[in-house]
């Protein structure tokens, strides 16, 4: 648990099945400073039960990142299911 954490703003983008489950495609959210990409995904899953058990990918500022990557203030975080173009 983080105590006395300061907050930072990030820009959250969602696509496809994630956007449908969350009911929104874009949100400016306040999160604890130092939150990791994976922790953000977990909080999103907790908030939207439709995402439980879903394999999700994360991109920060348009590059794929690992779940352990800490988020920076003002970054653009995109969360989505495995891609299915082609």
């Amino acid at each position, binding site marked *: 648990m983080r105590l006395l954490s300061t907050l930072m703003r990030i820009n959250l983008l969602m696509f496809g099945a994630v956007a449908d489950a969350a009911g929104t495609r874009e949100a400016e959210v306040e999160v604890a400073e130092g939150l990791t990409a994976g922790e953000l995904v977990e909080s999103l899953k907790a908030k939207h039960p439709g995402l439980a058990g879903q394999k999700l990918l994360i991109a920060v500022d348009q*590059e794929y*990142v690992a779940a352990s990557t800490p988020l920076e203030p003002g970054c653009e975080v995109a969360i989505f299911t495995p*891609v299915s*173009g082609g």
Partner: protein
Amino acid sequence: MSDFYELTTDVIDIVSVARRVVPPECGATVTLDGYARRFTTDKATGEVRETEYLVYEAYEPMALKEMAKLVERAKVEFEISAVGIVHRLGRLEIGETSVVISVAAPHRKAAFTACEWLIKELKRTVPIWKKEVYADGEAWSEGDSVASA
């Protein structure tokens, strides 16, 4: 001759894509025409579903960056001279082209190999999603993937 990668909501003219990658030092262009199929088999249940139409969406700026990386990697990996990729977004009717990949090479073998590699990688890394719309519902298609959370 320069490479290109584009996203469009317009109908893709396959010939015009293919003819944009014909450098004079080459002798062959291999072009993939990926199009919207009518029937899909559910990976989990084996059930065959009939699709009425498809909707593609993309995380556009990242999709373009990932397409650029693919082209760059393909040109290092294979003996090819030029690559053009165009992916359609929005609603597609059955039979309409969703993706065109054209690869020009001095000799055809490298162009075939690179084209196959490019579509495989595109389906794995480029943030584009396909929704299948049926008579009685819809479902986002889920791909195999790079990194997971």
